[in-house]
């Protein structure tokens, strides 16, 4: 029995679309028949988010993106993030699962005193996709908050939230004082608050990790986005105990990354 003689193409399409993007790429190597089906729009459309047209139409990307073959579009969205929500958020796809992966830019966060020039300033850095990132000049009390509607994200998915930042040479206030990180879904019990030092001295373990784009990231927490989606998830970073001056932190944003099911 040769499967392509038993099953019509659209059944095979359906079956492939129920596997994963990686499997679909492998299946394209099987035989001539599978090659065209596994690369087809019918299959790859199923790997894109349901509202991909809406996301792209409301982004800063050219609408010609939508006329790409779906497999190419998937690929593009995995490797070339686009700016959405008026440039406030950065969007891409997690390539193994096709789930939505966002970064909330500094502009969309609520940073206390951010619009007061002697406390914070907006600068432009070439290694950030966003137009502007926020640079801390001086505060005694640090408070950065953000929130995202859960229906923006992929449902039935575990997400991890990361604070994405840099520290410049001329910095103080983060070496010995921990900041408190917190992620919680509005209306539910608060998650565990993590206490981390952003800038530990050399002999202490560094909790932040270096990213490929040259920034640092530190995990704030995790949450599960179920199926009922009208709620929002809230993030906060705070240091409001010691009232000591702080300086030299650059904030790119908070990244919401779909969690891998297995270690692929």
């Amino acid at each position, binding site marked *: *029995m*040769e*499967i*392509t003689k*038993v*099953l*019509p193409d*659209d*059944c095979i399409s*359906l*079956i*492939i679309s*129920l*596997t*994963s*993007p*990686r*499997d*679909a*790429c*492998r*299946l*394209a*190597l*099987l*035989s*001539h*028949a*599978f*090659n*065209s089906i596994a*690369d087809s729009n019918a299959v790859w459309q199923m790997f894109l988010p349901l509202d991909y047209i809406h996301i792209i139409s409301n982004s800063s990307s050219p609408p010609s993106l939508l006329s790409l*073959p779906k*497999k*190419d579009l998937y*690929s593009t969205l*995995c*490797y070339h993030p686009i700016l959405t929500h008026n440039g406030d958020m950065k969007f891409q796809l997690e*390539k193994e699962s096709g789930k939505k992966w966002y970064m909330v830019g500094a502009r969309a966060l609520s940073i206390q005193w951010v619009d007061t020039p002697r406390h914070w300033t907006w600068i432009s850095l070439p290694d950030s996709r966003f137009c502007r990132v926020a640079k801390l000049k001086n505060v005694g009390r640090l408070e950065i908050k953000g929130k995202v509607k859960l229906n923006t994200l992929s449902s039935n998915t575990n997400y991890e939230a990361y604070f994405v930042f840099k520290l410049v040479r001329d910095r103080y206030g983060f070496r010995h004082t921990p900041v408190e990180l917190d992620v919680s879904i509005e209306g539910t019990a608060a998650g565990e608050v993590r206490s981390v030092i952003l800038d530990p001295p050399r002999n202490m373990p560094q909790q932040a*990790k*270096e*990213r*490929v784009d040259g920034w640092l990231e530190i995990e704030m927490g995790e949450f599960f986005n179920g199926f009922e989606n009208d709620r929002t998830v809230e993030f906060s970073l705070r240091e409001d105990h010691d009232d000591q001056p702080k300086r030299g932190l650059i904030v790119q944003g908070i990244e919401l990354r779909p969690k891998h099911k297995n270690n*692929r």
Partner: protein
Amino acid sequence: MSEVDMAVIKPEMMKSYIWLQTADGSIQQVEQEVAMFCPMICHEVIQKGMGSSKNYAISLPQRVNPAMLSLILDYCRFHQVPGRSNKERKSFDEKFIRMDTKRLCELTSAADSLQLKPLVDLTSRALARIIEGKSPEEIREIFHLPDDLTEEEKLEPLKNTTDDPRIRLLNRLYAKKRKELKERQKLKNIEVEEERVDDRSVDDLLSFINGDNGDSKGIKNSKSKKKNRRRKDQQKNTSANEAIKNHNKEPNGLNQVCCSAEVGQTVRAGVGATSNLHDVEDDIFDNKNELDDGDIDDEIDPALKEKIDREVEDFARRLNSDWPERMQEILSFGHERKPVHFSLNGNDSLRRYANSEQR
């Protein structure tokens, strides 16, 4: 019939039946509520008035043979009962799809022709579960598929979409490199043989000595290829070959861009810069894959070789000017598993160490 007989007529006799005919000519009658669960049958009854008697039996599509019809009717008979809970239905479904792969395919096909979507979804999911995570070789075995793509076609993931002339040239480059690899392989196999003997078990040695071809040959090829990988550190050309070979077996879409980058890097290395060798090897050894023991067929007509060589040099020059930044970006996203860095020891053999960070 007398009045008394009429009174004891069983209720079942008052049921209506639909008459169905399968492609092999056999006709059967099926309880109406069960048969009507299939949209295609429903349509025939309502729109065309068919199925009410043996002479007007509904002709079922060819893909529905009696065995499949029987299964489908079992499915319909269970699910058309309104009172069942979701748990019961799920439980039934799980038991129902326990059958061999061949039957699952036939059942999907039959259900599809009867437009019975819930069953199509059920069987398709089962087939998807069978497929996912398997290598192309394993899948071919399960579904008895011919391996009828040429190597070049397997390496042309973008062929259908952009028809970019650069990609076409890349593919010719791959083919050329593959040919070189094949030649080198032949030399290496002879060279490596002595050291390999130690790795094999006694049984392997015995069967090899006894002239048994099967397994020992397979082991030999895969081991020699593995050793070849480690030995080919010096040669930039061969690292590209590895990239191509490994790319053969990798999901073409997710790594296609990565591979283009590898070859581009290698070509650039050949023309001038040497620092990118390690980047290339990162991606090569990054990819976990099963090596195919089969021979690689070369598609390039010898008569075209000269033309291709010229094109390749030209292409290499153009790559250098256009693609450096793109390559970097592509490479940086190419890491999936633990990236492994290689460096050269004093004696020019490779040393591996794990990368401390990963994306």
